[in-house]
């Protein structure tokens, strides 16, 4: 009887001991950064999980850019140190990661996150901590309305949609069917597609969506086909749109298919195979660097980035890593002469002009924290398994 009584009490002690152990375990990883002779720049990307196609190249590109900065003597003689955490595309993890970067690693600026929801989740933290954050996500909610401490380097959906509709207008397309993926990327694209249609005299006749992991979209396409559009716009990220391309071919839908910049990587052509033929899409210039005229100011930047990336990682460059590369380079420039003062870095970012990066020429202003113009996108068509600039 005596023993029975003491049993739950022991249990209590075990719990307490284990929890204490947990805490100690956590704090062991918490050794404060000693060196003040260097600048710590935080990175937070979806390195694994659903959005790893964004986060993985972004992480690599940020490291690449930081290496370059250090090779050129650092910022005002101080080296740059990067600390990168993984969000797995999960807002809760992103919040924890940014908290760690701000409070534990004492990062003076943060690059990332990769996706719109994770960025929206951490934005208030950057604002509160008065730390510049340069997001790599596409959603326009990030910089509209403008938050003083939040910037972004990825092209907005607004520009991508405008590029597509401009092309349609020139081809005389009046009615479009939309097929968007049911996540933040697709939703943001869908909003823009519906909003801007009027300006270009285009009518949305059917509006469907698909799950990111769906295996077959013929049902949606059949429904779109029955509305008789002049063109179909698919808005998603790999691999869904590749399935859409295959299904379009299977259903023998003859109208042109437009994809978003979300599939702008050689992977898409590989996945969609011959069904990719003839597809139009807007993309940053990185995919077509070789095809650009020599007069394009971005050409040397792109070539340099591509060469360094492939050299270092022995893998083809993706269309998305450039966001983090630009962010790192822009930061390095903004941090020059700021002496690690966050307010000054922010000031420098906001007034930065004519920075030619991988994703376009950035001109930040007080009202525009994305800084890219319509020339950030070009329309390409897939022909014979390769990209071709559309004039």
């Amino acid at each position, binding site marked *: 009887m005596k023993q029975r009584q003491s049993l739950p009490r022991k249990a209590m002690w075990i719990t307490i001991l284990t929890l204490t152990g947990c805490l100690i375990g956590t704090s062991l990883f918490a050794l404060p950064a000693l060196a003040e002779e260097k600048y710590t720049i935080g990175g937070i990307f979806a390195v694994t999980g659903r959005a790893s196609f964004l986060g993985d190249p972004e992480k690599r590109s940020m490291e690449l850019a930081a290496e370059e900065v250090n090779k050129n003597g650092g910022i005002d003689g101080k080296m740059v140190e990067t600390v990168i955490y993984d969000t797995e595309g*999960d807002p809760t993890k992103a919040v924890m990661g940014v*908290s760690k970067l701000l409070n534990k690693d004492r990062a003076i600026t943060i690059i990332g996150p990769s996706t719109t929801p994770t960025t*929206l989740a951490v934005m208030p933290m950057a604002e509160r901590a008065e730390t510049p954050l340069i997001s790599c996500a596409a959603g326009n909610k990030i910089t509209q309305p403008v938050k003083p401490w939040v910037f972004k380097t990825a092209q907005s959906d607004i520009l991508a949609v405008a590029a597509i509709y401009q092309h349609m207008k020139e081809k005389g397309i009046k009615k479009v069917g939309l097929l968007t993926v049911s996540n933040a990327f697709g939703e943001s694209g869908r909003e823009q597609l519906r909003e801007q249609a009027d300006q270009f005299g285009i009518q949305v006749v059917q509006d469907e969506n698909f799950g990111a992991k769906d295996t077959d979209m013929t049902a949606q396409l059949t429904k779109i086909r029955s509305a008789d559009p002049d063109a179909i716009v698919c808005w998603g990220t790999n691999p869904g749109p590749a399935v859409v391309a295959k299904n379009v071919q299977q259903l023998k839908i003859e109208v042109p298919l437009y994809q978003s910049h979300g599939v702008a990587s050689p992977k898409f052509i590989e996945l969609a195979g011959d069904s990719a033929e003839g597809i139009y899409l807007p993309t940053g210039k990185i995919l077509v660097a070789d095809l650009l005229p020599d007069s394009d100011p971005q050409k040397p930047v792109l070539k340099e980035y591509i060469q360094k990336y492939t050299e270092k990682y022995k893998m083809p460059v993706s269309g998305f890593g450039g966001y983090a590369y630009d962010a790192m380079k822009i930061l390095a420039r903004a941090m020059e002469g700021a002496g690690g003062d966050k307010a000054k870095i922010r000031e420098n970012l906001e007034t930065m002009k004519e920075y030619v990066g991988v994703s376009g020429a950035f001109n930040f202003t007080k009202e525009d924290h994305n800084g890219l113009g319509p020339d950030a996108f070009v329309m390409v068509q897939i022909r014979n398994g390769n990209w071709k600039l559309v004039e």
Partner: protein
Amino acid sequence: MRRLPPIGHIIFILAVLLTGFLIENTYYFQLLVFVGIHTLLALGLNMLMGYAGQISLGHAAFYGIGAYTTAILTATYGFSPWAALPCAVLLASAVAYVVGLPTLKLSGYYLGMGTLGFGMIGFIVFREWSSLTGGSSGFVGIPPLEIGPVSFYSGRSYFFLVWTVVLGIIILCRRLIDSRTGRALRSIHDSEKASRAIGVDTMALKLRVFVFSAAVAALAGFLYAHFVTFISPGTFDFLASVRMVTMVVIGGMASVWGALLGAFLLTLLPEWLHAFSEFEMVVYGLILMGVMIVLPRGLFRGLLDVFEGAREQTAKRSGGVNGR
């Protein structure tokens, strides 16, 4: 036995106070806030799974209902969070009642399927009702909590708030377990037919526990929404429900402290495993399997057993025969 719970609670309070004043770094407070929120989820679900013996693979929906209700009421309609709290909890309870009525008639894996279906529908509603919920991109601009002049902005104050709530729910759970209802519940867990035979209204009881656990999940959702000030459907998907079940089972079913342990482990584990980078998932999966293989009754009972075993051995060695 009867004198025991207060001791546990005192130790718990001391532990919370100690950590609260010893830790300085905001990061740890934020981490512990998430642990606290997850503990609430595990506590509620534990009542359902551990005591009533019913599984739910859709509890993330209640978590989400709590979060979205308060988000919409406060950010869109300008309610005070404290007015939104009862609405969130009541709505989740009402939904749980309506859903539970037909669903709890199912049993075993069919119940799992039924609740899973409900969870998926909840997720789809959060995602697709974008005029109200902000859709997949999420809901921004949820105000932080305030009581008069005190703003729960810093990590420490929110830490104390969350863990006070956790303590309250722990006491509530213990009260419930030690009551007549609790005994009836355990009888359902052992054999539903037998308890019905001795006159327990099993359906009503199961429903009551289901509603209770949904209300606790909604409370956790409320705390989550006002802490992060942003919510998106991804936080309340099927995998979130599975994670909740895992916390309960890993910690040890039918034990309040087990729920606490499970929430601790599953929240902190990914933070520790960052060091493994690419191998994080592999190690995480291995640990999950390993714990269940070695300690099938969960960490809490398992560690208790190990402790007991060691004690017995020392007792034997020191010549203490007939210990039991």
